[in-house]
């Protein structure tokens, strides 16, 4: 182990130290919420800075491989990779994690003595999400996936007084474990077909496919399919999306944003690394499967979102459609990765803002958020209604929002790759998408609603503000960030 090894996993080290610090400060020293909350925020901030340092230190190098007990073994079977792709992912995940902490702050306050546990779990989940993006070995990727998932299962059921939160946690746990099992089976079959668990290095998948022609691909194809199913569950792509609406609706609103946005962001980036960077030689075998998954997702997500009467369920089903749009960009492999990175990061920030607003309108510890809660919001709380309108238009992909630029990027990439039918399909569903996003806007401005909205805490206002600013800024002036994602390619 040398110093560069430590730099590669520095964000994880900081986040885990932060989780320990939160528990220690809260339980042993009995400090107030402001102090251990600040420690958690500081850990997330410093982890993001560490990822920024990685980006700066990498400069023009494509990346480096790390971690093994013996020096030479690293070149054969590396566990962790540090490249511009993982550095940008680290920054984005830490930003989303920080927004998640702020969005959950009110909820943490209402949890009382269980609050520190929630925040410690949040930090562990973010560490797991980041580990997913730096993993160069499929077993490590699985461990990271489980670290994040198990933390989120617990966070989903944290408000134990509500029965639907229990239902959400159990449903998330059972279906998530099932998906993890399929993923691990895929990893095992991939090992059976290739003898490799890692992506890079002399013993990795890339060098295997560079030197070998697979004549009988039966096991390999099944393995690729199972990996895709496992990832599909985690990013809630149709037809593996059934858990998402119930889980989002049941889990406390303050926690759902990170659960949805974080897993999607890290899931897509890990999917990009495994398929686009790890298996580019097999693109003919997996790109059509990804395209079909994308097509089914955009149709199912848009159609089902159009009939929802609850904003959280609507965001869940629209998330299925968004998973489809990201997969559209992934069909062309590594050339689509900049578009995928742009879309996934901006979508994650917009989703954080939207769920923070759900918490502000329907209560951060609450479950359902029916349209009745949103009726007349334009008069009752004009600021919140305006922010929600901006974010929904961004999610819908209207011009001058980051959603438009993201869609433009993925569609352009897919057309260059020859998936015109898929882009036409995605464009049609985008129009359906505008219908259900505008339905929420219409409810806010044209329907009559009763009752005052509780004062929005400053933490939620920060999250919403950041999300709105990012949505508009990257929609009007996206070029600097487009250059960044173009440079952020995996090794």
């Amino acid at each position: 182990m040398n110093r560069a090894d430590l730099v590669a996993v520095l964000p994880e080290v900081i986040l885990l130290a932060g989780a320990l610090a939160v528990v220690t400060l809260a339980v042993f020293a009995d400090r107030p919420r402001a102090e251990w909350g600040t420690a958690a925020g500081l850990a997330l901030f410093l982890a993001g800075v560490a990822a920024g340092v990685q980006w700066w230190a990498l400069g023009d190098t494509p990346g480096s491989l790390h971690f093994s007990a013996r020096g030479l073994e690293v070149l054969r079977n590396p566990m962790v990779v540090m490249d511009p792709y993982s550095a940008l992912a680290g920054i984005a995940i830490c930003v989303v994690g920080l927004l998640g902490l702020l969005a959950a702050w009110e909820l943490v306050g209402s949890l009382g003595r269980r609050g520190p546990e929630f925040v410690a779990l949040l930090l562990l989940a973010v560490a797991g999400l980041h580990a997913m993006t730096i993993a160069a070995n499929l077993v490590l990727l699985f461990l990271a996936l489980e670290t994040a998932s198990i933390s989120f299962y617990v966070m989903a059921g944290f408000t134990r007084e509500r029965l639907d939160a229990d239902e959400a946690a159990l449903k998330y746990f059972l279906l998530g474990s099932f998906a993890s099992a399929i993923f691990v089976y895929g990893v095992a079959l991939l090992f059976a077909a290739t003898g490799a668990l890692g992506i890079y290095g002399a013993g990795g998948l890339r060098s295997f496919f560079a030197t070998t022609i697979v004549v009988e691909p039966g096991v390999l194809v099944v393995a690729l399919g199972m990996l895709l199913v496992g990832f599909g569950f985690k990013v809630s792509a149709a037809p593996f999306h059934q858990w998402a609406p119930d889980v989002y609706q049941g889990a406390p609103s303050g926690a759902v944003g990170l659960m949805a946005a974080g897993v999607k962001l890290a899931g897509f980036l890990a999917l990009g690394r495994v398929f686009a960077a790890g298996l580019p030689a097999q693109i003919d075998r997996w790109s059509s499967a990804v395209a079909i998954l994308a097509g089914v997702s955009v149709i199912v997500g848009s159609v089902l979102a159009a009939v929802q009467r609850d904003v959280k369920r609507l965001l869940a089903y629209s998330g299925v459609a968004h998973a489809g749009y990201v997969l559209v960009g992934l069909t062309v492999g590594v050339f689509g990765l900049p578009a995928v990175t742009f879309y996934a990061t901006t979508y994650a920030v917009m989703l954080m803002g939207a769920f923070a607003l759900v918490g502000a309108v329907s209560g951060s510890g609450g479950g359902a958020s029916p349209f009745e809660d949103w009726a007349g919001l334009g008069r009752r709380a004009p600021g919140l209604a305006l922010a929600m309108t901006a974010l929904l238009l961004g999610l819908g992909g209207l011009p001058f929002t980051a959603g438009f630029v993201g869609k433009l990027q993925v569609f352009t990439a897919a057309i260059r790759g020859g998936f015109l039918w898929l882009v036409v399909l995605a464009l049609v569903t985008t129009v359906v998408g505008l219908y259900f996003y505008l339905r929420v806007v219409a409810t806010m401005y044209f329907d009559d609603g009763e009752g005052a909205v509780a004062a929005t805490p400053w933490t939620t206002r920060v999250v919403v503000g950041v999300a709105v600013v990012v949505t508009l800024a990257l929609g009007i002036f996206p070029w600097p960030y487009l250059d960044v994602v173009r440079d952020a390619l995996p090794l």
Partner: protein
Amino acid sequence: MTLADYLPIALMALLGLGFSVVTLWLSWKLAPNRPTAEKLAPYECGIVPLQEPAERFPVKFYLVAMLFVIFDVEIVFLFAWAVRMDEFGWAGIAAVGLFMALLGETLAYVWKRGALDWNVPYRRRYRRVVAEPLEEAA
């Protein structure tokens, strides 16, 4: 192995899929569907109680069993290091020491939170963990 050798597996998969689809479809088709609010509520275990039971049942053994698993797995990791201790040298001792320190913190946390207090009546532990935040929030 050629693709034809996978035929039995494919047949088995088709059979399994067909069986589950047909059973689900039949039970959906044959059963009368009259939903009420109670029927649509999430089902946990039995009927929702109308009042708190007079006595709470202690389930502390389950907590202890869960904690036992954590520290038991820790020992398994130590064995793997112990058999090659000389080869790993001081770096190995440092790594294992860090690992032990993390688990020590876990143990201290569990202890401090009262999970190891066997003789505390369940009601009091319940109050400390669940009821208090609710009272604080109210």
